[in-house]
């Protein structure tokens, strides 16, 4: 069953430099099935975060529609927020509050009483229950923000570039956590520009460039279809470069 449906989603901004309207998201459509991990791949500025923010109710939708579990985001953003969990790229929290206090606070925002210890156990941070976020390492911080995103037992979990800036150990550790969550029944949508991450985690990926989805499918199918390199075992990176070109994106 599709838990998330996006149809012809659009968002335009006025560029502060050229004063011209440009389409950050240009009519994209996709569906997300339950207990799937869906990845949006794309270079910087492709519109990945904007897409996520529109579904999360953070950014107004200019055109098209998005529904989560049958609820339309534009008409009832608060009902959607109630059933999704979100991890943002920046993860700063109020000063001088412990992890436990922050989790309890986030629980309250959904009207729940939070079992902070159980949540921290899930992300392997239970010994840090009285620590403050600024005392955590990069990987621990990311695990903590996933714990925060789980306080409302969401139907869909959104992760925006969860492993960017992490060292290899922390990255693999986070992948394990994401897989575990998925195996326990969580539907997850993530953005990344790490091809290995998409290949390891995602059941389905969409490759975005300049606001449009230029390819969509299972990672293996995409490799078979687009990887034209001579390598024995193809990979998603080649597909990505083939589709988006090799010039630099700024």
């Amino acid at each position, binding site marked *: 069953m599709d838990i998330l449906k996006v149809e012809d989603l659009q968002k335009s*901004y006025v560029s*502060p430099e050229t004063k011209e309207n440009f389409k*950050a998201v240009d009519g994209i459509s996709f569906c997300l099935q339950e207990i799937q991990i869906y990845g949006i791949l794309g270079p910087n500025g492709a519109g990945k975060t*904007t897409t996520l923010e529109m579904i*999360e*109710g*953070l*950014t107004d939708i200019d055109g098209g529609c998005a529904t989560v579990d049958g609820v339309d985001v534009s008409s009832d953003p*608060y009902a959607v*927020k*109630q059933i*999704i969990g*979100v991890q*943002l790229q*920046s*993860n*700063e*929290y*109020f*000063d*001088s*509050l412990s992890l436990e*206090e922050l989790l309890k*606070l*986030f629980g*309250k*925002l*959904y*009207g729940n009483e939070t079992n902070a210890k159980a949540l921290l156990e899930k992300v392997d941070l239970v010994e840090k229950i009285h620590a403050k976020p600024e005392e955590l390492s990069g990987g621990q911080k990311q695990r903590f923000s996933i714990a*925060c995103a789980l306080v*409302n037992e969401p139907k869909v979990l959104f992760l925006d570039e969860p492993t960017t800036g992490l060292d290899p150990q922390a990255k693999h550790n986070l992948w394990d956590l994401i897989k575990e969550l998925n195996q326990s029944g969580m539907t997850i949508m993530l953005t990344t520009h790490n091809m290995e991450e998409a290949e390891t985690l995602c059941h389905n990926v969409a490759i975005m460039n300049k606001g449009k989805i230029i390819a969509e499918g299972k990672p293996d199918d995409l490799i078979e279809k687009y990887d034209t390199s001579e390598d024995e075992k193809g990979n998603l990176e080649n597909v990505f470069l083939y589709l988006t070109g090799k010039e630099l994106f700024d």
Partner: protein
Amino acid sequence: MLTSLQLHLAGVFLKIFLRNRQAILFSLFFPLIFIGAFSFSGTSNDPFIIGVTDESRSPFSQEFITNLEQEEIFNLIEGDFESLQSSLIEGDIRGLILIPKNFKDIDNLGALKFYVDASQTRQVNIIQRAIETSLLSVERKIRNIEPLFNLQLEDVKARPQRYIDFLLPGLLAFMIMNLSIAGSGFNIVEYRRRGILKRLFVTPIKPKDFITSIVLARMLIVLVQLSVVLSIALFVLDITIIGSYLSFYLTVILGTFIFLCIGFALGSLAKTQEGIRPIVGLVTFPQVILSGVFFPISSMPEIVQPIVYSLPLSSVVSSLREIANDGVSFMAFSTSTIGVLIWVLISFVIATRFFVWKEVAK
């Protein structure tokens, strides 16, 4: 009514404030400066030090000097012209009276000369008038006439009121404005810049709940700070509040609410910590000058009075002053109380309507 979410969040904000030692120190430091300002403004004016050079040494001049000495506003120093003149230039004395040699012949009385530093115009007027009064009474004595008119000052309010009693409500309102705008505006900009507000915004919290809870927490903090200053003013400076404390605090609470909301609105306008300072200055500075904190609005040009009266700080100042100085009850709903209530509405609407959770995408 308040929800459990709002109360919980307010508790969280209080906790954040109480764990920030710097903020606590600053919040105590601020009222202390005010108390200092109170105690200085409470003292009566020092007399003017005036130099006198008597070149005539006549009975007239002696009579005149004795008369001047009786004036409470003067402190006379006699001396030679040159040294007193240099004292005047250096600013040690306020003025210098030169009594000429020919100040003795009643038919050909030489004119007195009064030397002043003209940059002190306000004081010059006061001094000049007092000298003229002294001259007049000397003249009456010589001509042997009784004064025709008598002026007696009667205080219609029939209670001892000093400038400090007038000033206190103004200063408290000023303090409410500063602490409140700083408490909400500056915090909100920082929370937004760090993405904390954005993180909150992906949860189902509504701006109304967020603003209500910060307002609650900040209000408690401001009330404690204000009560410290008020109690010191009451006990140390012997201030009396004639109206009821209930009315007074009700107005204080509403005033705090207004400026917290204005702080939120300003915090939504500004994008950075650097950006909010000039915006806050632009809003608070003219109000400090115009809103009758230090002198009554009625002493201003009539044409600007309606505008000045409609400023939020003016409403709060006038309301507090009515209660403290004239014993007016809040429930009397005077013009200024209604002004306060209108500003409560306006400020809450702009704060919630224009609240910005996240930085605008580039």
